[in-house]
């Protein structure tokens, strides 16, 4: 909403500077987006021509400039502007001139007297940029002309951001009323000449009184659709409107002035002499005055005559009934429409206008008639003609509810100590009626404030007008209880901490994916959540998996030369089950290049391979006991067919790890040898997780272990898992710990065989082992492996 300062002053006496006004409005909760100053706020500045420029004797950048003021008068001033040149016509401020709040005094600059000042546009308050140099005026101007006459009167245009609960502020009157209440100044309503009216108006029939609780209007005959006067055109232009003709301009002018939208019909085009307010029929076609054709539904409220619809009520008139240059008789409408009714149609067709913005927020139902009077006055004054009687269909007059409350309730809501006197003062300024009976206060808001319905609303008014700085800061009080963070969040945080410790960087991605990506990652779009009004193609679905986003991160990072990547994300993934959304936290990571991000001398960086990935995933998950990894049963298409494992929790798959399929990399435009990835859902882990559960500590051996190396030769087909499964089942009287230290196949071994070397560590919790005990255990292991997997000692 734009507010012109000079227009505001029609309603209230204000002597605030624009800056002071911005402060007041801000304190009231009216955000000021911008202030634009127009016109000239200076006196004593005249057009002069530069006739001579000399160097200043005591300065290398100042000049002594001689100017011709016309009428044979010349003057010499000191000037430092870089753009002065002989022949220019410039604004000369004489001693005594007023520039905004500054009055120019005689000055001696570096020993030379200056008889005035050549001004820049900034100094004249015409611009707010630090313009370099003096303002050069049109060369055709007459010398001695008062420069202020070139720019008009000073004025300021405020762009206000009005919240949707305060439609009453969408006019100059409304803002004046608010300031009046704050500054305790009377609001001067314009002297509206209430024309009595001669002759019949149109009959009005309201078929939907809920959609249109009040409809007023009158006919004005014999008007001449002239051009609007300059003052009106200037004001409308400031509001951002293109002035058209007086009949149209007046309706807009009254709307910006009083806040009530009006519409003028050409009486020639209203058939049957009757206005009908009705709902549209489904499928009814209607062409707006901007040329757009709509196919209406039963929710659309229409203004119609007996033959046809003439306006989309409260939103826009039709092409078939608007005023034209040769219009002589008009019907002026000033009605109140129900906000949700207007909002439905606005949203349905995405049509919006200055008028609909006011109606869908709520106009002043009592103000409808005032607006009609004001418009009639202007029509008759500017266009001539005779106004008819007024039609006013208003079956159920509206009244705001009574709010009954005690003053201390206001202070309780705010936590303040505002005195009863102060509260009374504030409420009586805002009320239509306000009475107090001891602690029983009764407030009724005027019809333009439908937002004041209970004591909480009044508390806000009290705070706004008393000032929010009245609210004290006292020590924090709290009602303390303890609950754990939701398990999904807590597990996510724990896994994130672990991953960061392991060298991964956290990513955050937009939650949307395209259909192609979803399918490429094995999901049926039917089971994904589709956004109906997606922002862009490729952002149609909520992610069922985090991997595609991370692969995009790999691609963009590689482009910037970040070749060694360990990235993860932990957030929700989404699926749709029988039409209901399912949200699950997931943890997902990708690796590329080597784990250390930077190079060190010529040392070859160890590239990530499957076993590093596996080690990282195992370390990440080692706090979850029931986790195992197993070669994937069904390898999804986006993974390497041979390098993919399932992450199992109690035997059930909750995720996978492995190498991304090279074709998938190609699809994502990733130019890397290999990308490794893992992803798992935490839902199943959450079930057995409790922040109160800690793994009990295991005692460590205090007697030194006996170490032995064991090399066995087995068939190549025997997997490591088979080998250690046999090893684990060896019946032993001592504790055994082992790890693999070598794997060999090739020369010196028979075809089809491989050699595996373990480092074995035997120990006993209570004593140091005797050699014979170690020997015995070693032998048993060899026997076991020979029996189970046909292993031979190498």
């Amino acid at each position, binding site marked *: 909403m734009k507010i012109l300062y000079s227009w505001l002053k029609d309603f209230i006496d204000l002597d605030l500077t624009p800056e002071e006004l911005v402060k007041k409005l801000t304190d009231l909760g009216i955000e000021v987006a911008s202030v634009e100053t127009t016109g000239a706020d200076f006196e004593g500045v005249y057009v002069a021509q530069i006739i001579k420029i000399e160097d200043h004797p005591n300065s290398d950048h100042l000049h002594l400039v001689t100017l011709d003021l016309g009428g044979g008068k010349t003057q010499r001033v000191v000037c430092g502007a870089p753009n002065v040149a002989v022949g220019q016509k410039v604004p000369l401020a004489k001693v005594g001139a007023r520039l905004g709040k500054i009055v120019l005094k005689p000055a001696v600059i570096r020993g030379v007297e200056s008889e005035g000042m050549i001004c820049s546009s900034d100094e004249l308050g015409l611009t707010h940029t630090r313009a370099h140099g003096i303002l050069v005026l049109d060369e055709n101007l007459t010398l001695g002309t008062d420069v202020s006459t070139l720019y008009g009167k000073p004025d300021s245009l405020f762009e206000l951001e009005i919240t949707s609960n305060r439609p009453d502020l969408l006019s100059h009157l409304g803002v004046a009323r608010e300031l009046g209440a704050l500054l305790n100044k009377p609001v001067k309503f314009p002297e509206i000449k209430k024309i009595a009216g001669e002759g019949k108006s149109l009959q009005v029939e309201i078929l939907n009184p809920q959609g249109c609780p009040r409809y007023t209007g009158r006919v004005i005959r014999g008007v001449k659709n002239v051009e609007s006067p300059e003052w009106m055109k200037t004001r409308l232009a400031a509001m951002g409107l293109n002035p058209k003709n007086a009949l149209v301009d007046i309706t807009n002018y009254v709307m910006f002035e009083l806040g009530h939208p009006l519409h003028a019909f050409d009486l020639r085009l209203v058939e049957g002499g009757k206005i009908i307010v009705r709902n549209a029929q489904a499928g009814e076609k209607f062409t707006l005055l901007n040329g757009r054709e709509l196919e209406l539904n039963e929710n659309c409220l229409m203004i119609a005559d007996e033959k046809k619809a003439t306006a989309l009520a409260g939103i826009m008139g039709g092409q078939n009934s608007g005023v034209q240059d040769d219009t002589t008789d008009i019907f002026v409408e000033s009605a109140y429409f129900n906000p949700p009714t207007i909002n439905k149609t606005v949203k349905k067709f995405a049509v919006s206008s200055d008028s609909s913005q006011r109606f869908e927020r709520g106009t002043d139902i009592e103000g409808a008639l005032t607006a009609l009077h004001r418009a009639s006055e202007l029509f008759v004054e500017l266009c001539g003609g005779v106004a008819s009687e007024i039609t006013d269909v208003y079956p159920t007059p509206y009244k705001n509810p009574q709010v009954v409350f005690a003053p201390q309730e206001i202070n309780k809501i705010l936590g303040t100590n505002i005195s009863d006197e102060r509260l009374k003062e504030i409420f009586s300024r805002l009320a239509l009626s306000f009475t107090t009976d001891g602690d029983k206060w009764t407030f009724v808001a005027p019809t333009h404030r439908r937002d004041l319905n209970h004591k909480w609303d009044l508390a806000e008014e009290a705070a*706004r007008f008393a000032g929010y700085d009245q609210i004290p800061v006292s020590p924090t009080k709290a009602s303390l209880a303890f*609950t754990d963070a939701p398990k999904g969040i807590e597990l996510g945080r724990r896994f994130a901490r672990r991953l960061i410790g392991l060298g991964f960087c956290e990513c955050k991605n937009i939650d*949307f994916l395209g259909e192609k990506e979803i399918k490429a990652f094995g999901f049926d779009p039917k089971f994904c959540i589709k956004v109906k009004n997606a922002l862009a193609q490729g952002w149609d679905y909520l992610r069922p998996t985090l991997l595609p986003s991370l692969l995009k991160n790999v691609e963009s990072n590689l482009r910037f030369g970040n070749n060694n990547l360990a990235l993860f994300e932990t957030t929700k993934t989404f699926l749709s089950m029988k039409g209901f959304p399912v949200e699950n936290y997931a943890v997902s990571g990708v690796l590329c290049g080597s784990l250390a991000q930077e190079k060190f001398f010529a040392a070859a960086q160890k590239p990530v391979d499957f076993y590093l990935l596996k080690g990282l995933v195992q370390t990440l998950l080692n706090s979850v006991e029931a986790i195992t990894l197993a070669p994937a049963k069904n390898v999804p298409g986006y993974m390497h067919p041979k390098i993919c494992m399932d992450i199992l929790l109690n035997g059930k798959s909750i995720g996978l790890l492995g190498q991304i399929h090279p074709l998938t990399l190609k699809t994502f435009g990733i130019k890397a040898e290999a990308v490794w990835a893992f992803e798992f859902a935490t839902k199943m882990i959450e079930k057995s997780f409790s922040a109160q559960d800690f793994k009990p500590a295991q005692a460590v051996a205090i007697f030194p272990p006996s170490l032995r190396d064991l090399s066995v030769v087995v068939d190549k087909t025997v997997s490591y898992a088979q080998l250690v499964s046999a090893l684990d089942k060896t019946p032993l009287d001592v504790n055994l710990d082992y790890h693999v230290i070598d794997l060999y196949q090739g020369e010196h071994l028979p075809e089809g065989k491989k050699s595996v070397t373990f480092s074995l560590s035997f120990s006993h919790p209570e004593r140091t082992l005797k050699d014979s005990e170690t020997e015995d255990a070693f032998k048993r292991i060899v026997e076991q492996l020979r029996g189970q997997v046909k292993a031979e000692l190498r």
Partner: protein
Amino acid sequence: MTITEFKTACETLQQEYQTKISAAQSASEVEDLRVASLGRKGALTDLLKSLKDFSIEDKKTAGPLGNALKAALTAALDEKQSFFATKELNEELNKTEIDLTLPGEPVACGHRHPLSVAQDRMTEILSQLGFEWAEGPWVEDEKHNFDLLNIPLHHPARDAQDTFFVDGKMPLVLRTHTSNVQSRYMEKHKPPLRIMAPGRVFRNDSLDATHSPVFHQIEGLYVDKNVSMADLKSDLTAFMKGLFGDKAEIRFRPSFFPFTEPSVEVDVKCVFCQGKGCNVCKGSGWIEMLGAGVVHPNVLKNCGIDPEQFSGYAFGMGVERLAMMMLNIKDIRTFYENDLRILKQF
């Protein structure tokens, strides 16, 4: 040899060797002195041989005397020996040539995302102020995202939040704010309650320097008997002090949100210029931080809480906005580009 002569000999010997040990110039000289004094043919060994001729009574005096002398000489020799050994080692170490200014070997190290860094700090502060964790669904029904929060259908306030709608059995939206946690939580829990709910929210806004269709909020809600605007001001002041230091100051500006009444915008005194006015605060000295207010009585009623008995406050703040301020990030897209060169800084 008399016992007296033995004593004198011991003293002489001690003096002689102490002097010689002190004067020794090298490890080998010390070794020579060890042989000359304690060796098989050494001076002390020789002297001790005379013990065998002493009476039992004299042996009792002379024996400990001789042992003490032996211990004293051994200690002096060892000390001197260790002195030369240390000296020699240090001379060796001092020959080391190394350029300590070469870079350290890079170690794999992970980093928390800047948004998480900011959010963790905020939840940590709120946690210390007694707020418990809560969460709600991101795909939400209109009832919990709008209706219960006093944002009626066909009201411009509902249109102001550009909403993503999704296909489903019932009318579903991607939650437009974390306030859905308010309605969810109050349906299930009765006052007193004091919760924080960080999480993602969605608005149908194109991605540019200051907007993202996906962003993060932290919701705060406190409902109990006698909770007022003053409690809101106190707790938010404490929160901002936690975030920006003890000098942090806030101010309330009236505003409008359908789910609070009175509603306020909360500004914090510009942390860059201490309120003097700078580019960041556009000269105003204050920076808009979050929206808040007293929980609207309709919201309490809708969730089954009697607004005459209980009152509360609620606030919702954008994590991105605060993170941009805290971490000096100028463009919101930076958070979602996940460029390693940025991620590595946190």
